[in-house]
């Protein structure tokens, strides 16, 4: 039998949706069936997605669903494949990781069902080739991720609701834009749409694209909408956060890529107005991205809660992705896509590690951890490399992507975006250092003496993802090759990839040879390690409170802030304190409360007294009669 006939995106989606259903019913009776089936379905889907590489398909999914006979299409192309493979592999690894992490948690069965459903709908978002199915999958994705967040129980109530409300707001804005496009062009299929774009009034494009972009900006937690992100990422069940932050947050960027470059296209985008050769629309996105990156970094620096720190870090890293996306040059788009990949790799590992540590220590406060490096070497190493990648330290692939984005920003001479990005980058080094120091280094608290690495099911995904991070640092040509073809699909000049180790950055900036850089850096690291090994023997281990108490006997209270991780970056916090107090959350809260108050007032209209209602009726009639006399 020719199995390749089944390697089509629609079958991937069907497999996952059917899989979710089967897993639910099978999982009700046996937990073993639940684990193996969810692994099987996600693994199979991953395999199918991987085999889709290099294919270009487009097929009708269902015939005419609305009165005007809109059909739904799915298809794949280099851009969707690039995102699909990230999403599919992360989903698979997260499911594997969740088996020990989510064991015995509430509604465990639903967790796997919903994760498969989410995987299906995320892949549906990237595979869908028309506006309607895009929107349907988008809503499904929002709903299933919302449900996954709520699985954490009462603690996550507010975060989940806020996430859902903001997402739906974004989705409705998107729906408005989408219907505008549909009503104007009379088609929903992407390629037919993009063929009609040239010659469209600029105002119309701004309005519709802007409305659609709001939906994506909400999902990517960009500036005015980022308030949902930190609570939702951090309150979500530990098994879901890696997927949430690693995979789902990329879909906002995917949507922007899709609408800006695939549907509207570069030339029409430039036609909407440009700024130094960059489309104004893209510039606005880039600006939002850079400000988001900056602000979220500041918040991350303050956090003591490990998941919240990582959550803010996610927001800021997605800001980088948006920055590169908006600038829209060959370099920056490559950087943006590459950073999306890298962020997916390292943030997933970090959240997985954080989840494992939280399960072990029972706390999310970093000031109650410490010294875990010796007890959890695998977790430590994988997280260390991921943190390096996050902080864009050379030798990890995070370096390459951030560098590309900087180069692009500098190349264009953006005096606002580039510095913000740099400052945010320093900030990300600061908070990742805090993470490293507070959790893994220093002294081990008494309660954690017998801590050890989590089970293989947790470490395998982490090791797998980390080794990809390292691998891609050495051979950036592999991901960049896929990125280049995605870029050419989007009608952007593809980045030049000369060999696996080597790529050119523009023509003026020369080239980056990963192999050479890596060798030099490894050598330097080795020298440093040798030096440390000789000098290290002089150090002496002391109790972690001795730094403050000088050996005095003292009741240990973690809330006294004596842990070295408490108030880690006090000076920086003090510097930005007045600004950090102006939190956008408050505006949203105030708006929400204000509306509730307003509606409390509105419902007083229904006074309960029948005579009031008689007044309303007579008043309404009187008004109509007056209108009938004068106006009509």
């Amino acid at each position: 039998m020719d199995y390749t006939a089944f390697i089509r995106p629609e079958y991937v989606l069907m497999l996952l949706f059917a899989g979710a259903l089967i897993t639910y019913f099978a999982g009700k009776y046996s937990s073993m069936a639940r684990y193996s089936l969810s692994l099987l379905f996600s693994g199979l889907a991953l395999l199918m997605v991987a085999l889709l590489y290099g294919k270009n398909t487009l097929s009708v999914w269902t015939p005419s669903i609305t009165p005007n006979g809109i059909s739904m299409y799915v298809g794949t192309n280099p851009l969707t494949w690039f995102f699909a493979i990230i999403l599919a592999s992360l989903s698979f690894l997260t499911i594997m990781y969740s088996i020990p992490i989510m064991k015995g948690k509430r509604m465990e069965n639903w967790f796997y069902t919903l994760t498969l459903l989410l995987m299906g709908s995320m892949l549906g978002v990237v595979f869908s080739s028309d506006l309607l199915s895009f929107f349907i999958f988008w809503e499904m994705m929002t709903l299933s991720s919302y449900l996954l967040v709520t699985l954490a129980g009462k603690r996550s109530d507010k975060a989940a609701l806020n996430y859902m409300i903001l997402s739906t707001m974004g989705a409705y804005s998107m729906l408005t834009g989408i219907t505008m496009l549909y009503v104007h062009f009379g088609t929903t299929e992407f390629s037919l749409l993009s063929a009609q774009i040239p010659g469209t009034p600029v105002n119309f494009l701004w309005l519709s694209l802007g409305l659609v972009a709001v939906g994506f900006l909400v999902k990517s937690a960009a500036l005015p909408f980022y308030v949902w992100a930190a609570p939702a990422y951090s309150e979500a069940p530990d098994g879901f956060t890696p997927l949430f932050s690693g995979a789902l947050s990329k879909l906002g960027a995917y949507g922007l890529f899709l609408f800006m470059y695939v549907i509207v296209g570069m030339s029409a985008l430039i036609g909407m107005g440009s700024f130094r050769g960059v489309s104004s629309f893209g510039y606005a996105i880039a600006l939002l991205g850079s400000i988001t990156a900056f602000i979220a970094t500041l918040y991350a620096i303050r956090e003591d809660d490990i998941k919240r720190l990582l959550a803010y870090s996610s927001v800021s890293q997605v800001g980088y992705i948006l920055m590169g996306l908006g600038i829209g040059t060959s370099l920056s788009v490559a950087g943006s896509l590459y950073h999306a990949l890298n962020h997916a790799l390292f943030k997933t590992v970090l959240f997985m590690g954080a989840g494992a540590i939280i399960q072990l220590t029972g706390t999310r406060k970093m000031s109650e951890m410490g010294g875990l490096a010796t007890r959890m070497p695998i977790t430590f190493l994988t997280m260390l490399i991921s943190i390096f990648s996050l902080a864009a330290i050379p030798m990890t692939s995070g370096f390459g992507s951030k560098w590309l984005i900087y180069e692009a920003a500098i190349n264009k001479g953006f005096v606002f975006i580039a510095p913000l990005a740099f400052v945010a980058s320093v900030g990300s080094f600061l908070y990742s250092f805090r993470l490293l120091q507070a959790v893994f280094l220093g002294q081990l608290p008494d309660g954690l003496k017998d801590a050890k690495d989590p089970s293989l099911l947790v470490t395998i995904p982490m090791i797998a993802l980390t080794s990809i991070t390292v691998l891609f640092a050495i051979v950036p040509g592999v991901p960049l090759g896929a990125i280049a073809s995605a870029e050419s699909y989007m009608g952007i000049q593809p980045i030049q990839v000369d060999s696996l180790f080597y790529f050119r950055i523009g023509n003026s900036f020369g080239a980056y040879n990963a192999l050479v850089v890596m060798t030099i850096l490894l050598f330097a690291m080795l020298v440093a390690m040798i030096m440390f090994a000789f000098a290290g023997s002089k150090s002496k281990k002391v109790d972690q409170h001795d730094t403050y108490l000088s050996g005095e006997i003292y009741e240990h209270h973690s809330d006294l802030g004596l842990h070295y991780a408490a108030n880690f970056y006090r000076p920086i916090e003090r510097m930005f304190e007045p600004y950090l107090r102006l939190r956008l959350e408050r505006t949203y809260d105030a708006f929400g409360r204000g509306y509730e108050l307003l509606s409390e007032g509105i419902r007083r209209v229904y006074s309960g007294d029948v005579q009031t209602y008689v007044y309303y009726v007579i008043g309404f009639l009187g008004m109509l009669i007056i209108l009938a006399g004068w106006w009509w």
Partner: protein
Amino acid sequence: MIYYMAAAFLIAIGIYALMLKKNMIKMVIGLSLMDSGVNLLLISLGYINGGTAPILLNGVKPQEVVDPLPQALVLTNVVIGVSVTALALSVIIRVYKHYKTLNSDKVRDMKW
């Protein structure tokens, strides 16, 4: 013309009672008055001064005949009005049983 004015007057009294009288029985009386007003209005629409019953005997010209249709309508509406009034009054008895008042201000347990 006088009939139209009388009809308008009756309707106005009904609305007055509904808007300003707190007593629910008076409100129902108001409704009943409005109903009568509407009936009068309907009748006067088809009424021709000095016309005869719409029975086409010899010598009766169509334009001298009172329009029969409004009369049929009024008959129907009278029946409806009676039943609504009766039902309303019986409900008011039950309201009184529970609230010990007929004041519409006081009968507002359900609100907002």
